[in-house]
């Protein structure tokens, strides 16, 4: 981990017994108490994640909204100020440069939160392709980010602020004071649960981390690591860049057609997507479970009648459902619920069938 970067919470992770690993160039905790325990804490109470490795890029100035909107698939013009949206940042071929969340502060101020592994690539892409006259600014080093996720997240965070957090609706955000620190409190997340992503100054991160853990102690809040983050997001079928989506896969193939707004006007990748839509999508990302013993993992081949027809993109033993779950690209004719195929695990074909996703959906 010699060349890995450390977040402002590095010392806190060590203090709380985090087991540190290298991830996307960062040294981050994979677990504290244990992946399953942390996973269950998030589903039943709450978990606190360090996501300071995520990147922050701003579009600023006159025309910022239009400039950003030309680069993403979803439609910023439909949002109110204080609202966020999930979107694809695409290349000319319709493949993902990244998946992002755009936060609309005003038509002249848009924050784009990007994946850690892509932060430099994304910034260069956006800077190089944004219309002239708009400032595209990479502030990834200037922000720390905590994710407080779980059914008790609102109640826990409410102890640290006089701002009415229940007034921040899902996929909305507000600039507030939390534990005496100025933060952007966004009701977004990557676990399939209610909760917040909290953008703060790096120097405030440790104070907020400890204050939240203290405030949530009685409610069962636990620090949670990358392991639980991965199993939680897989259950919720939230795509991971580099696993489920990448430069060679489009939103239409990934089952993310809902983030493509065809009536918004031109955007990067639109022509390629229109062409793909007209021709018909050849492969689709589906959710499956194994009907025999085993655990599917990223990269395992998908077999139909002995022929390799696809590949597992994500897989795990679901802690919530107690069964193996996975995501895979398969030919469209195998994508319907109930379709069967095999996953090759260490040379052996293991029976699988397509199931409805998300695997887990919280009760509204």
């Amino acid at each position, binding site marked *: 981990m010699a060349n890995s970067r450390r977040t402002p919470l590095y010392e806190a992770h060590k203090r709380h017994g985090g*087991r540190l690993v290298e991830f996307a160039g960062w040294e981050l905790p*994979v*677990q504290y108490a*244990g*992946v*399953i325990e942390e996973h269950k804490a998030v589903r039943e109470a709450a978990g606190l994640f360090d996501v300071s490795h995520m990147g922050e890029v701003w579009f600023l100035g006159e025309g910022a909204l239009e400039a950003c909107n030309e680069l993403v698939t979803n439609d910023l013009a439909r949002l109110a100020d204080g609202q966020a949206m999930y979107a694809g940042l695409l290349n000319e071929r319709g493949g993902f440069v990244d998946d992002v969340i755009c936060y609309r502060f005003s038509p002249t101020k848009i924050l784009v939160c990007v994946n850690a592994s892509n932060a430099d690539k994304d910034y260069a892409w956006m800077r190089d392709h944004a219309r002239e006259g708009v400032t595209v600014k990479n502030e990834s080093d200037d922000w720390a980010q905590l994710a407080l996720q779980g059914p008790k997240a609102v109640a826990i965070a409410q102890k640290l602020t006089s701002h009415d957090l229940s007034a921040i609706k899902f996929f909305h955000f507000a600039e507030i004071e939390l534990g005496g620190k100025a933060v952007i409190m966004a009701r977004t997340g990557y676990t399939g649960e209610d909760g917040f992503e909290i953008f703060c100054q790096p120097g405030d991160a440790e104070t907020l981390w400890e204050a939240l853990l203290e405030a949530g102690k009685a409610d069962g809040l636990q620090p949670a690591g990358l*392991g639980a983050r*991965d*199993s939680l997001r897989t259950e919720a079928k939230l795509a991971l860049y580099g696993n489920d989506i990448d430069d060679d896969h489009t939103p239409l193939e990934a089952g993310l057609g809902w983030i493509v707004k065809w009536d918004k006007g031109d955007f990067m990748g639109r022509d390629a997507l229109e062409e793909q839509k007209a021709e018909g999508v050849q492969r689709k990302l589906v959710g499956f479970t194994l009907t025999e*013993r*085993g*655990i599917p*993992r990223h990269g395992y081949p998908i077999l139909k009648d002995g022929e390799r027809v696809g590949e597992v993109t994500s897989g*795990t*033993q679901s*802690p919530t459902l107690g069964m193996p779950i996975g995501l895979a690209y398969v030919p469209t004719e195998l994508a319907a619920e109930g379709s069967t195929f095999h996953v090759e695990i*260490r040379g052996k074909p293991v029976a699988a069938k397509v199931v409805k996703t998300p695997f887990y959906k919280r009760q509204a």
Partner: protein
Amino acid sequence: MADYPKDLKYTKDHEWARIEGNQVTVGITAFAQESLGDVVYVELPEVGTEIKAGQPFGVVESTKAVSELFAPLSGKVVERNDAVVDSPETVNNDPYTAGWMIRVEASNETELASLLDQTAYTQFVEEQGH
């Protein structure tokens, strides 16, 4: 500090062996299960399978990782613990007793002499920087 019983022998791949005549019971150490994290899947050979010292004989998977199990000795599998296949978390909860994996009839008892004793294994784990 993990616990390594005195009456067991160990490998550098973090398996343990309980030797009773030419019958040897095999499992993974407390260090191994702690490093793996939550064990969610165990794959073991069928009874009757011939295994070879130092070669993989099975697989344990945790929530995140796949790890091979390496045979501490050569011989024939005479029993396997289906309880850990059905409840893999047993490996975390009780690695030395309920969490055993297979029982092997040793085909070359001289191999057993090269296994580490508790002192040597403890030292090996500590030298690994843990």
